[in-house]
């Protein structure tokens, strides 16, 4: 459990850079910096692209504005959001 939790953040960083085609190393993403509307140039279409990725890969839905604001506050917030809602997996 602890191991899985620890690996989620770097995994998300890698998926985010891959999914959006960002020209940067995943490690360079500040886990606590805002994801949207800041220096990364992530806009509404990117956000929807991430919503699809999170639903597909983690089974977590972000289908309203409030959830989006919470989930995309930062990379760390996104990891928390997914951890809290992720369906239990058969170990």
């Amino acid at each position, binding site marked *: 459990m602890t191991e899985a939790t620890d690996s989620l953040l770097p995994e998300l960083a890698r998926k985010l850079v891959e999914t*959006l*085609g960002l020209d940067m190393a995943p490690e360079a993403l500040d886990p606590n910096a805002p994801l949207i509307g800041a220096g990364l140039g992530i806009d509404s*279409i990117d956000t*929807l692209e991430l919503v699809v990725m999170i*639903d*597909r890969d983690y089974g977590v839905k972000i289908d309203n504005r409030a959830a989006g604001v919470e989930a995309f506050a930062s990379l760390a917030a996104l990891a928390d959001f997914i951890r809290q809602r992720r369906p239990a997996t058969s170990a």
Partner: protein
Amino acid sequence: MSSRPRAFVTGIGVVCAGAKNVAELRSLLAAPRRRFAPPTLFPCTGTSAGLPVAEIDGLPIGLPTDSDLPRTHQLALLAAREAVGSGPIPDAIIVGTTTGGILRTEAGLKAGSTSPDDYRFHGLDTVALCLAQALGIHGPAMTISTACSSAAVALAVGQAMIRSGLAQRVLVGGADSLCRLTFHGFRSLQLLAPDGCAPLDANRAGMTVAEGAGFLLLESAPSRPTLAVLAGTGLSCDAYHASSPHPEGAGAALAIRRALDDAGIAPADVDYINLHGTGTPDNDAAEAKAVRAIFSAPPPMSSTKGLTGHPLAAAGGIEAIIATVALGDGLLPANTGLVALDPALQVVPVTAPTRAPVKTVLSSSFGFGGNNACVVLQAPTEQTAAASTTSPLALPALRVAGAACLTAVGDLAQTWEALRRGGSAVGFVPDAAFAKSVVAPFARRLKRLPRLMLALAQKAHQTSGISGPPGLIAVGTAWGPLAETQDFLRKLFESGEQFSSPTDFIGSVHNAPAGQIALLLGATGPNLTCSAGDRSFAQALLCASLNLAAGGSALVMAAEAHEARLSPLFEPASQGVHASDGGAALLLLADDSAPGARLRWLGESGARGSAFLDGLGLREAADHYDAVLVNLAAEFSSAAKNELDELAALARRGCPVCPIIAVRDRLGQHASVAATVAALAARAVTEGILPLTESPLPLARKRLLLLDLGARSAAVEVFA
């Protein structure tokens, strides 16, 4: 009023959810009832289960021979046949469509079929070709693909065609069938309403994707009773965002203003507005602002998409027919689906069908790429019913102020030089020739075709020396953004039809590159995309020639991007050693007396064999031109044998013999090579030498004929 011909609507034909003809539509509008339900055309389980659409049931309902056709083609035929009826054959047809035969393509890709026969209807052009053949239309068969404004843009082009005298009778409209691409695409954007759309509602939660077709017959001299007059049209581009409308509705307001001005009327003259009104939070908010910006006291208005759903490219055609019914029946259609009006919109829709005199209707259609089209329809009056006649006119020649091309050997100068040395430009454009040339905030998301197109547009604009944006953008592309289409469907099928990419969906619409060009150049003028196979460039030039006001400037271009999986399925004969991609862009000026190369669109014809030269008005061509440059796709090389024989006979009559040059041998096989030929020809007539023969050909007349020979033929002349 002006003395130019007017576009009288003398026939209408429709098929949409709840109505399979005009009579049924009239009943539906008088007593609205909607039946939105989950699609039956493709599986919708898991993440998409239960999401409603507006599907038409009971197809096929046309002729037995129609049943082999894809759904979009069937819908288009139904509506087109009703519009033409027993009347005279139209001179031309203009079809707005975004889906074409993609529902069938999806089935082929899902099944893993590698048989090109399963993909023969993928080209958007096949809808117009099918209608032209079924109805016996010999003149231009055009395809406009500007997303959800397609049919309304087709109406604008049709009106321009009537006004120019180029045609006396034009069938215009649009058709789209439901398919996975649009359903899952809009779903990935979270734009589909879970319980069906509720335009203007405080709790509106999106649109309901639909299907249908709507066609109108426009005539300059009515051959039967006039139903309405297409009094004005207005086109604009937001130049703001790929998929979201300008938040203040600036582009929408511009299109409304242009349509009213074009019709020569004031806002107060409008009796009813048929809104675009998709039911998405952003559209309805922006559109309401646009309406309030133009109308100090807005007339009755409604969105009928709560009844019909949103039939995408067909919407502008179906809603122009609803406008015609409103005029004829004295009916204000209801804003179906509305429960609680959104007070923030500050507009008041018609809540129930209302009988009232209606003399003037404004109908709006807006699409991805910030593409806006508004049309004004008016009831026929004694004065307007006076027929005007005019003889066909030659379209104006446009001067080439800037040019760019991209081929396997590089840009225009590099391509010219390679050809002059006897080399070829066959092959794919190397990434290094364009990939990094466009710096825009949105460039990160762009795949091959938009990058090629942006690089071409930017270069042509730069070389023109014109500082401001072009007044009009007309783009040709036979296949559109294939990588985006392929990636979208691949991800969809890989996930068991559960997940797809919103980025690829927005990028897959054929007018996405044109919208991005508008964004890059800040071009808020008309923005058209033509997808008509090998005639795509010629049709883009036709659009510019028809719509360019004196002194105006237009960016006219065409390009294709090869896609490893789809291109071999769609154009099997064009693969192998001659497989190529790329294209060209020209910055053209109207009514400009400066010296330089000029392009003139001469004609498009479906006539074959011995009639083909007459169809294009080229019987005497051999004496006028230094050479004929023939753009013949490998796909049509055997089908066009008779036309090639006619051309050879024509060449022999010329004095001196006019050489016929097959351009694809040197420039490669791709549908938009016509644009590259035009860019090279413009340079050739300026320099007096053509580097497309074994040794460069001196041009005594400085006049070249460019001929596209395929499913239909098209002719453009280039001269200095």
